[in-house]
């Protein structure tokens, strides 16, 4: 019997390369004649380049060329140029110099003279919304849906709107850009037993993947060879071809390993175009080694929110009304976390009456992008401590109030009135509570030990966890091995290997007979989902399931055709296909593959299904005739959104004399359907939760308001969590109930733990403070100590980019 693979711990096949230093990330590639590019970054948050003089730099020995804004497309904002004529944030690349060494390139940058004309800038969205306030772009400060798609608008609130807020501790709420509602919130508040209302700020924070977005590129015979750091492979090739206005088949994209992206490198980066364009101009391979300093500016950030929330409760703890207003800091090129945030809030608390208003404002701060659980993680970490407040006023258990409000299978939510394929949030809460020991731990709440007070918290966090309709592509070779072609990326989630498991299982193959093909578009990659939004576990177990099912049929047909009988009489196991009545009446997979090549047609990929994507057709075309091909589109369909959940539970010790919070215990418990790879799942749950802890406790983006430039631009000032900032031991678990609408039953998990980790800590800190919600992240010792000492808070409730 072939081994059962789903649910087993199997180290990913690339791990040895990773631990011996042989794994090649983008900066590890070299090319003959390679030169180094260095960039000149904008020194101000908003400016117009009046004049560039590179003559002195170009005269330097070793300088090979310069790349100017005029050398690259200058799309209309909010599209982002590679090099900006009108930089809209400090740190935006303006030009680049290439030289034979990086040292010379850097020295040459210093010799460049750029005349910048400073333009008005804005960092705080509220400043831009004030009457007469500055706009981040000369075109406006928000994008709205107009008659011909989205358009710029100069969106301002009135003095009255601001006056109504009265103090800086209350969010002003003028005209929103997006609004949706269900039921009647005002009536529901009128009938509510308890109402909680807060102004609350969630800071913006940079992704800081360990590997900066370095790229190298060269051209050969009209083809572009690009090496970059990206979360997705197949989709990055398309994105790069599209950006350079090229036929995708003329691009060879190599992205074998990605040193983290977290949403900031979904289909590569804007910057990956630079070496490609530069290389074309100077006809030399160009390495753009992006430094941490540059990455901090250019590497994207999670958008911050300034929010206001009002929650109404029935006497039994049911949330009956939720009114939410979110002002999003959209950064230089915009963001849309505000939309998701409202949907996630509605899904998590299931109020009968809900109103969500928001405005996403462009600012002259580094560009934003999705960051693990975009919108969801922020809103959950903001709202969970407020739910706790309601529970306290009602005298309810905090776990019970979550179980009461969490969605049931008949859930409907959001402005589009969606349902879910499956939901076991209540089970995640109950089983997670059991595993954590909620009943025993909750009594520790407020316990004083010397100067330390214990706090206990919970966070329940959902996020989308799957998509449908991608292609699978497999090749059974004459040596009997199975090649699984993966167009998704390799950023450490192990999906390149784990989503191939269903294919091996369906074909009855042991895992050591499977080879994963990934990371190099010249090797034939099928149409794939982006490796983002927790999609791949769901999307590509399906796609590989479909392709393997196709391969199985073909194998059975070949066996029946060769050995007689009906295809359905043949069983696959141990690398062979044989008749169910007689094991010796069979063929090895190697023989089957050879027979497939002889037969040609659909068997070896010369004839392909009609419904697969053009990218898959191209990939399969290159493999035709090399073995038996399994290729299919995921047509399994499905009804409703695919969401996974994590319930996070934490214990903290808060030192009342220093404001320092020590996270001592953490349990994350997931509802993500069937567990494919337990150890990897645990890593996602705990790793995501730790990112959430950083979000809640320490990470920040600080700007000087007068000059408009960032200050916390080093790792130690931006403060992502280290190994001493998290509990020494953490635990995790999963409900493990399969999703009925997907053949393997598995859903993704990358996103939800971030909100769970952040919210559990925020909830625990509020608990340690006796239920006081500080309503701001990060919860740093200065803010906590000021609260404990009764000092004026260091920052107002609406202050952003501070710390």
């Amino acid at each position, binding site marked *: 019997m072939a081994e059962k693979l789903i649910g087993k711990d199997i180290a990913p096949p690339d791990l040895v390369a990773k631990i011996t230093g042989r794994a090649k990330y983008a900066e590890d590639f070299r090319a003959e004649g390679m030169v180094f590019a260095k960039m000149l970054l904008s020194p101000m948050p908003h400016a117009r380049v009046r004049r560039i003089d590179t003559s002195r730099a170009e005269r330097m020995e070793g300088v090979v060329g310069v790349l100017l804004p005029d050398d690259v497309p200058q799309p209309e904002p909010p599209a982002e140029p590679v090099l900006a004529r009108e930089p809209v944030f400090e740190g935006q690349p303006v030009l680049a110099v290439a030289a034979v060494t990086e040292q010379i390139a850097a020295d040459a940058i210093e010799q460049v003279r750029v005349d910048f004309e400073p333009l008005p800038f804005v960092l705080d969205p509220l400043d831009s919304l004030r009457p007469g306030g500055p706009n981040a772009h000369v075109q406006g400060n928000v994008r709205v849906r107009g008659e011909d798609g989205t358009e710029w608008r100069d969106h301002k609130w009135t003095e009255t709107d601001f006056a109504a807020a009265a103090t800086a501790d209350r969010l002003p709420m003028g005209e929103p850009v997006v609004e949706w509602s269900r039921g009647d919130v005002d009536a529901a508040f009128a009938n509510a037993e308890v109402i909680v209302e807060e102004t609350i700020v969630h800071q913006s924070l940079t992704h800081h993947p360990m590997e900066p977005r370095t790229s190298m590129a060269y051209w050969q015979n009209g083809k572009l060879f690009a090496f970059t750091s990206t979360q997705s492979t197949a989709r990055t090739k398309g994105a790069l071809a599209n950006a350079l206005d090229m036929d995708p088949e003329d691009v060879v994209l190599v992205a074998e390993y990605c040193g983290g992206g977290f949403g900031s490198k979904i289909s590569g980066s804007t910057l990956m175009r630079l070496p490609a364009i530069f290389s074309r101009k100077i006809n030399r391979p160009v390495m753009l080694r992006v430094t941490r300093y540059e990455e901090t500016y250019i590497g994207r950030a999670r958008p911050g929110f300034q929010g206001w929330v009002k929650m109404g409760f029935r006497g039994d703890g049911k949330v009956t009304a939720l009114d939410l207003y979110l002002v999003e800091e959209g950064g230089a090129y915009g963001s849309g976390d505000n939309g998701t945030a409202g949907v996630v809030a509605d899904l998590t608390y299931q109020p009968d009456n809900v109103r969500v208003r928001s405005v996403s404002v462009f600012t002259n701060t580094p560009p934003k992008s999705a960051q693990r659980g975009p919108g969801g993680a922020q809103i959950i970490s903001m709202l969970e401590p407020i739910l706790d407040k309601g529970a306290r006023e009602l005298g309810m258990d905090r776990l019970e109030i979550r179980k009461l409000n969490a969605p049931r299978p008949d859930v409907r939510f959001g402005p589009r009135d969606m349902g879910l394929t499956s939901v076991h949030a209540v089970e995640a809460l109950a089983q997670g509570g059991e595993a954590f020991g909620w009943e025993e731990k909750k009594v520790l709440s407020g316990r004083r030990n010397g100067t330390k007070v214990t706090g206990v918290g919970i966070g329940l966090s959902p996020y989308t966890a799957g998509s449908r309709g991608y292609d699978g592509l497999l090749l059974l070779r004459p040596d009997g091995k199975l090649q699984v072609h993966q167009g998704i990326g390799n950023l450490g989630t192990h999906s390149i290997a784990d989503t191939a498991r269903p294919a091996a299982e369906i074909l009855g193959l042991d895992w050591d007979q499977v080879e994963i093909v990934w990371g190099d578009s010249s090797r034939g990659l099928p149409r794939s989902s982006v490796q983002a939004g927790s999609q791949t576990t769901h999307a590509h177990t399906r796609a590989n399931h479909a392709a393997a099912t196709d391969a199985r049929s073909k194998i059975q047909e070949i066996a029946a055709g060769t050995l007689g009988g009906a295809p359905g009489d043949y069983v696959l196991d141990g690398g062979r296909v044989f008749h169910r009545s007689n094991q010796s009446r069979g063929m090895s997979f190697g023989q089957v593959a050879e027979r497939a090549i002889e037969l040609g047609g659909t068997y070896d990929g010369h004839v392909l299904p009609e419904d697969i994507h053009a990218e898959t057709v191209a990939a399969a075309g290159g493999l035709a005739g090399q073995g038996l091909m399994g290729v299919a589109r995921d047509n399994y369909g499905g009804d409703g959104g695919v969401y996974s959940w994590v319930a996070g539970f934490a214990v903290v010790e808060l030192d009342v004399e220093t404001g320092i919070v020590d996270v001592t215990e953490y349990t994350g418990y997931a509802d993500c359907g069937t567990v494919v790879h337990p150890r990897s799942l645990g890593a996602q749950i705990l790793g995501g939760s730790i990112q959430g802890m950083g979000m809640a406790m320490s990470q920040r983006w600080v700007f000087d308001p007068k000059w408009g430039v960032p200050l916390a631009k080093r790792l130690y000032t931006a403060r992502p969590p280290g*190994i001493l900032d998290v509990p020494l031991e953490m635990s995790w678990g999963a409900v493990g109930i399969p999703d009925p609408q997907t053949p393997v039953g598995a859903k993704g998990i990358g996103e939800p733990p971030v909100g769970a980790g952040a919210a559990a800590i925020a909830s625990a800190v509020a608990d340690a403070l006796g239920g006081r919600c500080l309503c701001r992240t990060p919860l740093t010792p200065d803010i906590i100590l000021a609260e404990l000492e009764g000092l004026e808070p260091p920052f107002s409730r609406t202050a952003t980019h501070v710390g």
Partner: protein
Amino acid sequence: MDEVVVTRTLERSVSRRTFIKGVIAAGAATSSAGYLLRGSTGLFAATAMQGTAERLITLNVNGQQRRVDVLPNETLAMTLRYKLGLTGTKLGCDRAECGACTVLVDGVSQYACSTLTHQVRGRAVTTVEGLEDRQSGALHPVQQAVLDEGGFQCAFCAPGFIMSMVALVDANPAPTREAAAHALSGNLCRCGDYDKILNCAMRAAELARRV
């Protein structure tokens, strides 16, 4: 000091003392622009200088003697990655903050990004590429432990963490989990795989004790 190209002796008062001098060629100059002035100020303003050729030195890396051209201002991480082809040592921050460039110098963990290559002449440098047994090709116990525990996610930090783990198990064969966390606190993992990394470290100590 046979590798020293220019050895200068101070003739007047310090004739018995020798020191090594390295010189490089590069230009630098100052100017200023409006708005917010940022650049060199004060005491150590840039000065243009003349220089001579690069210097050939010998380094002991992973047990091998390697001849290499090294600039005076060149860091060990750059030499390893760009001159010796040892790209396992990663540049995560280049500012001694993230630990991805951790290597061992005479068995002690250091940040290669913030060590001048000229400072390690005559000292034994070990990188992640030097851990496997040279004869058998077997993984180092620390690497084996990571494989056993399925450690790391994106793994860009892995070479650095592994070098810190080697330093840990060499110095402390039976660390507590807390001691291991302290020993690894100079390495950052943005995937947040700390729990599993600590499992790896504990397993590594166990395997190392058996060797």
